[in-house]
C-alpha cells in the first residue's frame, strides 16, 4: 500500500546547522495497517509525514502508494491519495467559510473541480449524515462559519474531512496534541471509529505513549532520523510503556531524555 524506500533528507546541507533529518528510512505498510509513530522532539517524525504528503521532497529514496511512484509529485497531486490532519486545529479547515462549504471542498478532493455548485440538496443531506457521526451537533450548524468552532470541534471536522473520500493513506500528525485531555480523548475515539469504518491505512504520530499503544496494530519508534524499533501486531497488544522505555535504553544505550515523550 505505502512503501518508503531508502528515504534520506538533510536540512541545511553544507552549513554548520546541517541536520540529518531522515537517515535511510524504509517502511512498508500493508492495506489496513494502522501504524503509530513515537519518538522525542527532532526524531524526524513530522519530517517523514511531510515527506509522504509532498510538503517536502526527499534527497533520495522513493515513495510508492498503491504501486504509483509519487516521489516527485507535488503536494496537491498526491493529496488525491492522502488525507491529512494537522496538529494545529486551525490548519485543517478554512475559518471564514461555513461548515458545509468546508465539507464540500473535502468532498470534491478526488474529482475535477468544476462549475457545479459546491453544496446542493443531495450533498447537504450526505454532509448531515456524516456530521452526525461526530456527535457534536454540528449537523444542525451547517451554515455556521468554521472560525466560530472550538479547537476540538474544528479538529473533529478536520478528521471527518480528511477521511471523507476514503483516501488510500491517512496521515495524522499529533492531531490531538493541542487539545485538552477530554477533547483529545474524544478525537482519539473518533479517529478509531472513522479509521475502522473505512479500514483506512493510517500513519499516526503521537507524543502520547499510551495513545500509541492503544491505537493501531503496529508501532514504530524513531530517533535521530532513524526508525529504531518496529513492533508488529502480535507483540503490540502486550506492550506497556515501561517496556518501550527499556527497549529504548537497550537500543540507544542511554535513557530517554524527553519527559514530554514519556508523559504525552
Amino acid at each position, binding site marked *: 500500500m505505502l512503501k518508503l524506500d531508502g528515504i534520506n533528507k538533510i536540512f541545511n546541507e553544507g552549513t554548520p546547522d546541517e541536520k540529518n533529518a531522515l537517515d535511510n528510512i524504509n517502511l512498508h505498510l500493508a492495506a489496513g495497517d494502522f501504524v503509530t509513530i513515537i519518538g522525542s522532539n527532532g526524531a524526524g517524525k513530522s519530517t517523514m509525514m511531510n515527506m509522504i504528503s509532498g510538503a517536502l521532497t526527499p534527497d533520495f529514496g522513493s515513495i510508492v502508494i498503491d504501486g504509483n511512484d509519487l516521489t516527485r509529485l507535488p503536494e496537491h497531486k498526491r493529496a488525491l491519495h492522502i488525507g491529512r490532519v494537522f496538529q494545529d486545529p486551525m490548519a485543517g479547515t478554512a475559518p471564514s467559510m461555513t461548515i458545509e*462549504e468546508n465539507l464540500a471542498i473535502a468532498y470534491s478532493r478526488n474529482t475535477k473541480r468544476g462549475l457545479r455548485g459546491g453544496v446542493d440538496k443531495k450533498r447537504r443531506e450526505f454532509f448531515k449524515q456524516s456530521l452526525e457521526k461526530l456527535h457534536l451537533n454540528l449537523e444542525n450548524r451547517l451554515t455556521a462559519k468554521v472560525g466560530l468552532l472550538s479547537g476540538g470541534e474544528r479538529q473533529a471536522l478536520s478528521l471527518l474531512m480528511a477521511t471523507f473520500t476514503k483516501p488510500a493513506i491517512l496521515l495524522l500528525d499529533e492531531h490531538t496534541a493541542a487539545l485538552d485531555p477530554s477533547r483529545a480523548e474524544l478525537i482519539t475515539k473518533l479517529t478509531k471509529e472513522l479509521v475502522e469504518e473505512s479500514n483506512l491505512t493510517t500513519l499516526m504520530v503521537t507524543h502520547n505513549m499510551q495513545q500509541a499503544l492503544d491505537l493501531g496494530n503496529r508501532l514504530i519508534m524513531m530517533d535521530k532520523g532513524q526508525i529504531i524499533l518496529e513492533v508488529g501486531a502480535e507483540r503490540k497488544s502486550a506492550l506497556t510503556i515501561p517496556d518501550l522505555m527499556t527497549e529504548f535504553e537497550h537500543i540507544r544505550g542511554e535513557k530517554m531524555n524527553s519527559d514530554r515523550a514519556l508523559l504525552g
Partner: protein
Amino acid sequence: MFTALFGSVEQGIIYAIMALGVYLTFRVLDFPDLTVDGSFVTGAGTAAMMIVLGYNPILATIVAMVAGFLAGCMTGLLHTKGKINPLLSGILMMIALYSINLRIMGITSDTGVTRPNIPLLNTDTVFTMFNDFWSKLGIDSVLSSAVTAMGGKSLPSTWGILFFMLIVTLVIKLIMDRFLKTEIGLAIRATGDNKRMIRSFSANTDSLIILGLGLSNGMVALSGALIAQYTKFADIGLGIGMIVVGLASVIIGEAIFGTKSIMRTTFAVIAGAVIYRLIYALALRVGWLDTGDMKLITAIIVILALIIPQVLNKQKEKKRKAKRLAARVAAQKARLNVEQGGNGLA
C-alpha cells in the same frame, strides 16, 4: 446639482465592476493586487483602439476584458511560478502595462507606435447603441416628468445609461455570487483563507491564484472599457490610483453594509463604489478644492473609512463593558440588601 450627482451615480455603477474585481483579489484571494492601475487602462485603451478602428463596440469591450484577464494571469504567473512577492508582482505588471497600453493605443496612430490618448467623439459606443434602442421605448420622458413633478429642475439627458449599467453590474454581481459557491469558487476562497488546507484537498493553489487574478483584472478592464466609452475618452493616466479607488469602495461598502454573506458583501462593494463617487462629486463642489486635489481626498476617504469603524467598535465595546459593570454592581448591592434584610430578621 441633480445632474452632477446623477452623473456620479452612473459612473459609480461602472466603477463598481472594477471594485468587484478588487474585492475578488483583495478580500477573497487575500492578494493585494496592484495590477489594477494598469489593467484598467488596458481595458480602456483596447476598447477605444478597436472602436476607432471600426470594430463593433460590444466586441471591443469583450476583447478589452480578455486583455485584462491576460494581464491578471501574468501577475499570477509572476507570483506563483516566479515566486515574487504579491505586491511586487502587481507593481511590476502595472509598470509593464504602462508601456503596453501606450502601444495598444498606438495602433491607431498614423505617425508613431505609441499614443497617450484616444478621443471617442463621433463614434458608436455600447452606450449609444443601447440609447438607440432605449429612446424608442419612451421611458425617458415618463421618468423625467416624474422628476419634474417632484420638483426636480435640471434633468439628465437620458436614463438609459443608468438603467443599462445597473443591469450589467447586477448581472456581473449575480454571476460572481454564484461562481464563488461553485466547486472552483469554493477552492479560490479557501486559497485566500488557508492555502495549506486547500492543498491538502488536492487543489492546485497556483492555478487558482492565477485564475482569480485573471478574473479580477478582466472585470477591472471591463470597467475601464466602459468608462472610456462613457467619457468618450481613453487616456494613459486614467488608471493612476485606481487600486485606491477600488479599495475605498470595498472598505466603505463593507463598513456601511457589513459582510455577513457573499451576496451581501458584493452588494456592499457596489454600493460603496457609488457612495465613493458621490463623496467625490460633493468634494469637487467645494470652492477652494481643485481637481488636482482629488487623489489626496481619495486617500483621506480611505484612511477615514479604515479608521472610523475601529473607533466606533472600540466605543461600542467600552459602552458594553460599562453596562456590564453597572449591572454587576447593581446585582451586588441587591444581594447585600437581601443579606442585611435576612440578618435583620434573625
